[in-house]
């Protein structure tokens, strides 16, 4: 199932309309999701209609025939001292038009690139978040496959090899906050949904192509206010592209990327409808210890909200603790945010943060980490 297609498209649509409207007014999150997403795309963009043959590394590169795509990294990291961190580095692309504008200027651009960078400092209970927009012109931002795979937004970048055992670098710096990580995938790409086709609505083409690298070994440094901290841990990479609009009844989603230790990983995606119900297109992926994926249907899992948290800045109330069950896998987990306040107040407001994952899977105790995203609240 599609997870971030709506947020990305919404973010980019907002980007174009309200770039960085930070200081006074609240980011128009809820407006964007329902309004911006309903804008019809140029008919000439390709749509995700049926499963395709994925080919790597080609498909790690840009997919300009589709309107929207993104490369999404989250990581749970720990220093030798035991200090814990979460971090997120995301690159989005959205085409504002199908054809490049007919201008002799090199500044004229068809694509807008947005990037988000956030570091959660668990010990201090602090989230530092940043955002960037650039046009896909003059090498200011872009994505390439040759000579090596690279996506970047000025000096924030991800580059290298996404192959199993390969190495890739994440780099981002903003003021006193910086991240430099080397990642190496322990699995082949995991295709979500139906062989990588992630359906998110009933309409024709209301779907995306979606794969993940759920098990990346990570090591590197985090810089925070002059401190340079050696860290290591696990990262998760999501990659998705589409040309699709959000269903008028869909208002937001909750997404879970949970590590289960020796048992593997679990991705769950619950799309919320206007009436508060979970959409039938919600789904998940079970990844076993060998990195093999099994799709989970809506009926195969349950997510129960145990607690809520209200943001002091936006006054938005988010769910803040969950009980997750997958009965067929004897899985019962309690998912708790490592910091309550991991709300990103950027062009679009959402909650994305590091969580603690505790419970049992197949009778074995689990005490791991993961990431949760809450959008459209």
């Amino acid at each position, binding site marked *: 199932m599609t997870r971030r297609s709506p947020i990305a498209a919404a973010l980019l649509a907002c*980007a*174009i*309309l*309200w*770039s*960085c*409207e*930070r*200081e006074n007014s609240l980011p128009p999150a809820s407006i964007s999701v329902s309004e911006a997403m309903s804008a019809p795309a140029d008919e000439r963009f390709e749509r995700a209609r049926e499963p395709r043959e994925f080919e790597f590394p080609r498909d790690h590169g840009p997919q300009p025939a589709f309107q929207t795509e993104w490369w999404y990294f989250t990581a749970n990291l720990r220093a030798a001292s035991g200090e814990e961190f979460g971090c997120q580095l995301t690159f989005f692309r959205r085409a*504002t*038009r199908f054809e490049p*504008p007919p*201008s*002799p*200027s*090199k*500044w*004229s*651009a068809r694509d*807008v690139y947005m990037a988000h960078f956030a570091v959660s400092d668990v010990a201090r209970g602090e989230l530092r978040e940043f955002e*960037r*927009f*650039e*046009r896909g*012109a*003059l*090498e*200011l931002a872009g994505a390439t496959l040759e000579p090596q795979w690279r996506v*970047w937004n*000025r*000096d924030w970048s991800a580059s290298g090899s996404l192959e199993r055992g390969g190495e890739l670098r994440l*780099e981002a*710096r903003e003021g006193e906050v*910086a991240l430099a990580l080397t990642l190496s995938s322990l699995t082949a790409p995991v295709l979500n949904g139906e062989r990588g086709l992630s359906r998110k609505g009933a309409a024709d083409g209301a779907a995306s192509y979606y794969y993940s690298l759920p098990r990346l070994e990570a090591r590197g440094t985090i810089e925070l206010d002059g401190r340079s901290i050696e860290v290591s841990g696990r990262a998760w990479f999501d990659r998705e592209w589409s040309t699709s609009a959000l269903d008028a009844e869909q208002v937001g989603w909750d997404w879970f990327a949970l590590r289960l230790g020796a048992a593997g990983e679990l991705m769950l995606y619950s799309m919320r409808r206007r009436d508060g119900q979970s959409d039938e297109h919600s789904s998940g992926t079970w990844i076993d210890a060998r990195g093999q994926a099994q799709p989970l249907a809506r009926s195969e899992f349950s997510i129960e909200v145990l607690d809520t948290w209200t943001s002091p800045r936006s006054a938005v109330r988010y769910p803040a603790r969950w009980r997750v069950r997958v009965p067929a896998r004897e899985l019962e987990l309690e998912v708790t945010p490592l910091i309550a306040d991991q709300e990103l107040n950027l062009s679009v407001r959402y909650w994305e943060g590091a969580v603690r994952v505790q419970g049992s899977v197949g009778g074995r105790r689990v005490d791991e980490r993961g990431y949760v995203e809450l959008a459209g609240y």
Partner: protein
Amino acid sequence: MTSLLSRASLRYLARHPAQLALAILGVALGVAVLVGIDTASISARRAFELSSQALRGAATHVLRDVDERLYVELACAPGAPPMAPLVSASVLVGSQRKPLELLGVDGFAEARLRPQLSGLRAANTLASAERGAALAASTARELGLELGQRFEVVVGSQLSTLELAAVLEGDDAASSAALGELLVLDIALAQELTGKLGRLSRVDLVLDERSLERVRSLLPAEVRLESAQSREQSRKSLTRAFEINLRAMSLLALLVGVFLVYNTMTFSVVQRRALWGALRTLGVTRGEIFRLVCVEALAVGALGSALGVGLGLLLARELVELVTRTINDLYFAVQVRELSVQPAILVQAFALGVGGAVLAALAPARDALSSAPRAALSRATLEQRWSALAPRLCAWGALLVLAALGVFAWKGAPLVLSLGALFTLLVGVALFVPLLTLWASAALAAPVGLFAGNLGRMAARGIAASLSRTGVAIAALAIALSASAGMGVMVASFRATVTRWLSSTLRADVYVSAPTLSSINVETQLAPALVERLTRAPNVVGANLYRALELQDTREQWLRAVAIDFDERAHDALEFLAGERTAAWEQFERRDVVFVSEPLAARTALGVGDSLELASPSGPRAFEVAAVFRDYSTDAGFFFLPRRSYREHWGDDSISSLGLFARPGVDGESLAAELRASLAPGEQAFVRSRATLEQASLEVFDQTFEVTHVLRWIAGGVAFLGVLCALLALELEREREFGVLRALGLAPRGVKQLVLLQTGLLGLVAGAIALPLGLAVALVLTRVINERAFGWSLELSFPPRVFAETLAISVLAALLAGIAPALRMARIPPARALRSD
């Protein structure tokens, strides 16, 4: 006793409301002009600062005219500081051809740099809208444009059509004002329209000490990183002399106002001599009387100043328009949306008004207490003392005049000191007035008696007899008139000089420039194809090619420059004030030299043989000054450099205007018409014959001096009040005298004649003093003040009209001022007048 004294004082003032009102009005007008002028010029300056500040945003540094790839390199460097690229040009917008600054922005970068111009963020919509543009809401309204509507824009010499895709609102007044001057486009479209593909007009950066070093290390050696405020500073400094001159003129109005207070206080002291004589015998001390006079002056000063502050704010509303127009014509573009009322200015003007009034009252107050109680009752004592004092005053005056002359002779005297000396000169001459009046009164008695009989002789002698009144009235009138005449002569001389200069400088037959409404606009350029076609037109035999621009010297000073290819026919158009003609032209053809205009030479102390070091894209370049030439186009000053050198070192080939020489036998007017007809559709250019351009230049000149004219009138008005006040005082005092004359058989008509004759003579004397003094003022203004303020040497010319006007105004003002007292005197029954003592 004090309460008795103050009650007496109040009673007296209440019985002489006209006197009091005139004195208060005099101070009020003086203070009003001061407040008005100061507030107007501060508002203009503030508006410029605020809009520059809003446009500058957080930027601390700026790179100018760089390759776009340099921006990408800097922006993508690890940990790069916030920066934003800009492409700018001056354009004309809409069918009204409103001059605006085209600003091509990258909306994303703007959000980092100028968050307070949230309007600029709307520029993001522009990136996706084809040929979309954004205007401030106020500008869109003014142009009658609505969202989605198409409108014309002239960029350089090219007409294009854009669509209003967004309307911008500023977050505050300054941002709105700044946005009001902009046509905002996406940077890609801006590059396309201005033809600056691959180039950026500016990169604005926000740097702290650390990032400053980092950025410096990334820059190629020839690229200069300058302070974001350097150009703004350079521009602001240009208006300083203009502002000081305005200030001086407003102080003049106050000076005349102070004379008025002096007059009133002297009068009131004289009137109450009898009363105070009596009070002194009752035991009132001298100190008490002295204090009383001072307190009265303080009250008049305070009331007048308070009124003046209010009036001044009203006046500022009118003046600000005149002041901004001049600044726009001569210095830089600025729009004043609101007055910037500074309490400090108001307090200062108030203090000057009150201080002036008290100062003016010191002499009469001393008078009041210097005489013995009984003598104080005698009016004649006072007049006798004045007659005795006249030569002494004259000596003091001579001292002041000498001091002033000393300052004028000192070549290096600063402007403010020179203006101070001008005031000293005026005051010094005013001190001559009593003696001159005595002489004039004696000299006039016989001739006036010839045609007006005894009455005439009485009128003439009467002036001397009441010297304490008439002397002050004549001095006030003479000073105001001479200042006004001096300014008139200065402006006339200036205009004559400029006219002569224009006709000798404008040698080409037809001038072509990109359409612009401002003479200071240096950004607009002509399309190369148009230049090519026009210079090769069949009836054109030669051309001057100009590229106007601003260049920076190596000390971050921005200087106006014109890179020029002179046609040989134009060589004698320049009048060299320094530098050998043939050698200078030879050097101009071959080497890196510059010709410096007279004001620039004065401002920067550059002389022939000196070196002007300019910052070029390929590093600093030294240009030798080969000549200084006469120029009146701008007091900012500029220099000519060979276009050949400019192209070589700056790599810019563009042309901003042309001077075309017609084939012999073809006249300019018809060549202009012919060239105009040859413009292709979409091509926009001003094609003007020499005569038209000359006329347009003189129109700008006249506009510039409108402020001066307004101030002349106001100073004249205050002087008129002064005369009125003095005459009222005079005639009131002489009620008894007139009563005696009436009793002796003089008809009311005779009284009227006597009064009018006397006031007319008074005006004549004032006028006679004002004429030479006016000339002296004109001489000082043209030869001293103008050179020191603007670096201009003007040829003095004496329009007889100004002098005839001065004399006429002087007599007329005095006569007009005499009417009311004359009527009053004639009406008073002799019996009552006699009883009044």
